[in-house]
């Protein structure tokens, strides 16, 4: 008997519970309709217009410039990098023509030094690193199953930093103020005493632009890969290319600050009169090489690993 009474009591309690839950669900339903979230409840026209409002881009040139679509940014990255590849290749061609015969009067010594500096800087900073970042920005969200990269605006910012860095270098080349101290810019040759004028400043500023760009893209990729994977895609089930890009992006995050630091110190030596690299004032010319190659050695793998991913 006692059991039956207890059961009846229990049943009544469950009934109350169910009603409460249903009421709560109805309330949430109303809330959802008000907020109209992205999800299975949102369908048809409404879904399309909402997606368009979130992911579409405004018309016209402003919209084109303001686009944060990862595919569009990825395409721009790749096309820009390929354009720089062609430009760098033309420089290599010019150098080879100069060297094809002894005593060629085609290119002066000063111009030749600019050519190999421009060639090295273009290939390393404006082609090899950005092109694979471009591929990744395009393809990684598709691979891990997300609509866009993490931080889409940072992604767009990184592209424009890269573009402006590259344009600055090449406009300087057209204006005959291109750097001429080698793509590695060893101090003290690149310092204020032995490279007067603006050439080394142009180089160091280009480095700052492209490093910030590479770092931003690396952060975008790491966050996309680690935080925006489709449900069920564990790290061990992730495509190999995503792994390769994750490793590359982490290497960029570790390596690039070193070159950003040493080029900033160079700018400061050149424009503010500090003596980081001036041996006569207890600076050290070798400091540059240590910092630069702290970046330069991983750089080889930053270039090499992504191409091994697929």
């Amino acid at each position, binding site marked *: 008997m006692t059991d039956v009474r207890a059961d009846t009591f229990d049943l009544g309690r469950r009934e109350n519970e169910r009603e409460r839950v249903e009421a709560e669900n109805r309330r949430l339903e109303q809330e959802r309709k008000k907020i109209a979230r992205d999800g299975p409840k949102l369908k048809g026209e409404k879904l399309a217009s909402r997606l368009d409002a979130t992911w579409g881009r405004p018309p016209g040139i402003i919209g084109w410039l303001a686009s944060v679509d990862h595919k569009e940014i990825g395409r721009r990255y790749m096309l820009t990098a390929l354009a720089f590849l062609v430009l760098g290749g033309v420089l290599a061609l010019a150098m080879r023509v100069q060297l094809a015969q*002894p*005593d060629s*009067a085609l290119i*002066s010594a*000063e111009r030749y030094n600019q050519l190999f500096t421009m060639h090295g800087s273009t290939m390393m900073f404006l082609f090899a690193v950005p092109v694979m970042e471009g591929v990744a920005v395009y393809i990684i969200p598709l691979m891990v199953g997300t609509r866009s990269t993490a931080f889409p605006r940072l992604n767009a910012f990184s592209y424009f930093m890269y573009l402006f860095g590259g344009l600055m270098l090449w406009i300087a080349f057209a204006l005959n103020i291109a750097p001429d101290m080698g793509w590695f810019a060893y101090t003290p*040759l690149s310092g204020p005493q032995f490279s007067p004028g603006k050439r080394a400043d142009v180089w160091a500023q280009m480095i700052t632009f492209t490093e910030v760009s590479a770092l931003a893209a690396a952060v975008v990729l790491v966050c996309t890969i680690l935080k925006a994977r489709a449900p069920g895609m564990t790290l061990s089930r992730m495509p190999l290319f995503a792994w390769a890009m994750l490793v590359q992006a982490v290497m960029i995050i570790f390596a690039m600050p070193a070159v950003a630091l040493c080029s900033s110190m160079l700018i400061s030596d050149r424009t503010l009169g500090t003596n980081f690299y001036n*041996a006569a004032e207890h600076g050290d*010319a*070798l400091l540059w090489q240590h910092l630069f190659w702290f970046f330069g050695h991983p750089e080889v793998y930053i270039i090499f690993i992504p191409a091994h991913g697929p």
Partner: protein
Amino acid sequence: MMPRSFARAAVLPLLLGGCAYQRYQSDFGAAGVEDRQFLTLFWIFLGVCAFMYALVIIFLGAGIARSRRAAEANVVETGRHHRSHPLMRSTLIGWAALIGVGLAGLAIASFFTDRSMAAAAANEKLSVTVTGNQWWWDIVYNSGDASKTLRTANELHLPVGVPTRIILNSADVIHSFWVPSLAGKQDLIPGRENDIIIVPKTIGMFRGQCAEFCGVQHAHMSLVVVVESYPDFVKWWSHQLQPAPMPTTPLAMAGYKYVTTGPCSACHSIGGTTAGGLVAPDLTHLASRRSLGAGTLPMNEGNLYGWVEDPQSLKPGVHMPTIGLEPDQLHAVVAYLETLK
């Protein structure tokens, strides 16, 4: 202008003669103890790596040649091919062991090369300070006795078989001392002192080249190294220690007056005269050297005329200015410089 000077620089080794051309500037020159040891190490590395490479290619070829069906039957279906194939297992273990042995062998070879180089260099007999400058080499043969300290430029004489410590530093930017036929590279860094020990084993003439980009005339910063017998070296050394002879002809005398009192003496020094500048190559025995402008041109009268009159067109950017001498001054200066044997 510059291209022609390149041609002259290219002809220079042929004009100099006295050595096998292929040894003039070559990692395979084997003219010094260090280079010989490097070469031995190089052949060991090449042999070990070539063997391993050949093995990899053989395995790759075998893998390609293996029929797809056999591969699928063994690998895809069981997924435990290494367990089901004792041959594969032992091959993999053998492969890992081979890599370990190969790497250990290379490490041991490098260690012993390093030790024997240190042993060969232990008892240095001669100390020379080489200072890199844009774009020439300042050379000082050190001695406790100041009257026996010899300063010259761009031409390094070494006695064969004598371990010589070359102390390296720089007056401006980073350069690199590289005479491949004799030894490896070593950087010249402002504010630091490096050294390299050379034990030349072959008599002959060898070309050194600055191996760290150092500015617009980096390509024209070369060095002639003359390795000679000990008596020849002592003869050269005691001759170089002599002050410059007084000129005997009126023309050379006029040149002497111009050089020692004019703008030349602000940068250049000439032993036994009032010319005492230290920022440019010493000229005491200029005409005894084999090249002008750190290997830019072979030393001869015509090139001396060209160089003194307009160094900027022969080596654009060189720190020696084009002074614009009158013809009679030019004749006199060259006549005087030619007496500096």
